[in-house]
């Protein structure tokens, strides 16, 4: 699981069966300093996240476990909205 920030939404009309009604977000993964790390990715939303939200995601096979349908081809899902991260290295809260 990892931290990210919602930077956009994605709309797809033609989707694999089981993905109907699933909200797709564009998420930028963040590092310990809350700076972007790696490329933005598309993730399913299961936490009612919106633009600019600071979220956490689950990747790989377990992403599909966050959705109602069991066997759907997704590899990232937003599973929570972060209120606060208390860190020992002085970086506090949401960015």
């Amino acid at each position, binding site marked *: *699981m*990892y*931290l990210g920030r919602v930077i956009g939404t994605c709309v797809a009309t033609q989707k694999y069966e089981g993905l109907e009604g699933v909200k797709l977000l564009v998420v930028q*993964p963040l*590092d*310990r300093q809350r700076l972007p*790390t790696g490329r933005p990715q598309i993730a399913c939303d*299961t*936490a*009612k*996240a919106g633009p600019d939200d600071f979220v*956490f995601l*689950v*990747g*790989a*096979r*377990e*992403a599909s*476990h*966050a959705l109602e349908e*069991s066997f759907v081809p997704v590899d990232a*899902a937003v*599973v*929570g*909205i*972060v*209120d*606060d*991260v*208390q*860190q*020992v*290295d002085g970086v506090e809260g949401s960015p």
Partner: protein
Amino acid sequence: MKLARIVGTVVATEKHPAYVGQKLLYCQPLDEHQQETGEALLAVDRAQAGIGDTVIINQEGNGARQMLGTFDGKLPIRSVIVGIVDAVTLDNP
């Protein structure tokens, strides 16, 4: 499994039901010399760990499902802290 140090705690109100009641910690992976390496990650705590502890993280879904149970056979959790490390000894440091 990964060696990591806990660097923070995560508070989230709006989350998937599988995460309700679980302690979520922010962890920095370490190499064999306990130096920081790679990207920090979140893990559910199953070892009563706290900030500053060196821990072992099991980063795989089936193990997580066995430990935490499932909702209808499903569990969107992948990383679980399974132990607090007392010492790491290398034969040829």
